């Protein structure tokens, strides 16, 4: 996972090289793949997934792995996808895993 690549899932996930390397560095490949699998299963109107590294200006030097689900249709005010994903994450993984992985949704497509 050290280079940019695709993971073959029903909807492929585009993983940026630095994000893949961070997952390896954290030693959390199994947890990461479980999160990708859940995203595939749980996100309605899913078009693509992008995995990038998020550099938080409030936490320099400690980048997190951001899983973004791109979805068909516009942003909806009452959508609960992010909240439901978060609830699943805290039920499924301990804090030392959750702290490194974030989830987001975006309308449209990631441009590929």
């Amino acid at each position: 996972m050290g280079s940019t690549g695709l993971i073959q899932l029903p909807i492929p996930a585009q993983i940026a090289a630095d994000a893949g390397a961070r997952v390896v560095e954290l030693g959390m490949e199994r947890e990461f793949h479980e999160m990708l699998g859940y995203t595939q299963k749980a996100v309605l109107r899913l078009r693509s997934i992008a995995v990038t590294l998020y550099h938080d200006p409030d936490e320099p030097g400690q980048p997190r792995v951001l899983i973004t689900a791109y979805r068909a249709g516009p942003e909806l005010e009452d959508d609960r996808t992010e909240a439901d994903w978060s609830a699943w994450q805290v039920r499924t993984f301990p804090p030392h895993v959750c702290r490194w992985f974030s989830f987001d949704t975006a309308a449209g497509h990631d441009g590929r």
Partner: protein
Amino acid sequence: MDGRAFLDIAKELSQGATEGHWRTAAGRAYYALFLEGRTALARWGFQVPPPPGVHSWVRLRFVYAPDPDLKEFGNALERLGRLRNEADYALSVPGPFASPARVKRAVKDVEQNLNRLDQVEADRARLSAVIAGIRKAWP
């Protein structure tokens, strides 16, 4: 004034007509949640550090709390913090601020998580377990 007052401002701004209103609302929504979390931790006896490290300090105390509602509070701080940073710094494309929908969702997110915090604080036994758990995770 307490941090929660920023939520009212965020609501007002989310009803505005421009991308600038919606971006500003995202920041106020984040700060409503962050400041309430910071104040709660201080009330619970934790020594709160000064900026700039205080944002991650607060978030991680909640992420490691031994209570699913407060873990979600921590996750909400994470996603709202990202939205705030995008609102303030990523100006080249509208992104999630092409319409008010995303920031209205953020306002609801804050409301839900402030309710979670209130519920924990209303339950003395639950709160004691939370404080002990956070202290254990962050001695």
